[in-house]
């Protein structure tokens, strides 16, 4: 596990930077629903693209993996967007 993390450290550094940036934007734009929505869409899109890029890099990209990342990003997106909408 740690070996894999170290081997892909650049990829994981990008991933965690993106996730934390998304989290900061989500709370930083409190009171500005439009910007918050854009931050959520950006975060989910980033996650999906990161997943594809990472598996491409590892040369094990498969359509099942693409669908998995797409669905997980979509679930997160709809959850956060509806939370903004209900706030």
């Amino acid at each position: 596990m740690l070996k894999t993390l170290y081997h892909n450290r650049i990829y994981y550094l990008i991933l965690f930077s993106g996730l934390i940036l998304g989290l900061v934007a989500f709370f930083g734009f409190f009171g500005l629903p439009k910007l918050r929505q854009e931050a959520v869409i950006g975060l989910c899109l980033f996650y999906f693209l990161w997943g594809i890029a990472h598996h491409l890099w590892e040369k094990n990209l498969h359509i099942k993996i693409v669908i998995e990342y797409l669905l997980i990003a979509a679930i997160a997106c709809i959850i956060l967007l509806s939370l903004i909408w209900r706030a």
Partner: protein
Amino acid sequence: MLKYLEFLFLPHSKNNHKPKVLHPSSLLILLFIIGFFQVSLTLLTRLYPGVLGFAANIQPERIVALTNEQRNGQGMGSLTINPSLSEAARQKASEMFTFGCWSHNCNGRSPWWFFKNVSYNYLYAGENLAKDFGDAETAVSAWMDSPTHRDNILNNKYKEIGIAVVDGTLNGEETTLIVQLFGTPAKAQVATLPAAEKTAVQGEQIKEGESPLVLEAQTPQILIMQNQIINNLPKISSFDLTKWFYLSLILLMIIVFVVDALIISHKQIVRISGKSFVHISFFIIILISILLSKAGRII
């Protein structure tokens, strides 16, 4: 039953070594469940108004105190409560509930209409609106985070303030509206009439025409605004319901991913799948976002 739960939540030869709930078909179903939940909530609030929502006990005086705190912090003078402005704010809130609108322009009336309706002749005027906030601190903090609303609060041209905190049912959901009006009265004995009045936009102050006219000074109205509190029955808002539903859902997903990752790693099973560790990290970020989310909107 136990076997079915195992099939759903644990990697097994019968589910192709991946919990059934993590299969793409199940994730798609989950997406539809979330959509169905949201549609049901919307229908519930439309068909049975007042079932969902909550009313907060916010004191108007606290809003004024917090607003003045912000101004004093910037070296500005405090705003004084003007009962006429508070009455205008109450009328605005009442209009919003009556016509179910969440906007600065309600029923074809701009915010300035309410100023005039209470005979408040102004040189400068502004309006901030908020709803669904649980306390005064969060509402004022949200206004301060928004540049346009902040500009209204920290505008040195304003001298007076009017506040109304009113409970009611807005678009099928019980809520608490906060209407904050700012104004600078046209000087005693000398007032200006609007030359070209701007239409209302969010948190914007307007300046009236320059040509002064001599008018009678307004008689100060003695009016004490009361915060209209409707019975505070313990109710749950659609936001809270959504929040708790999502928290349970995401927590369940994280647990399933963790257990799956541990078993797969222990058994050293090779399969075509995304990285569980990455999915867990992503869902933890989503979990934090849901956990720390607060209700409340401003315009």
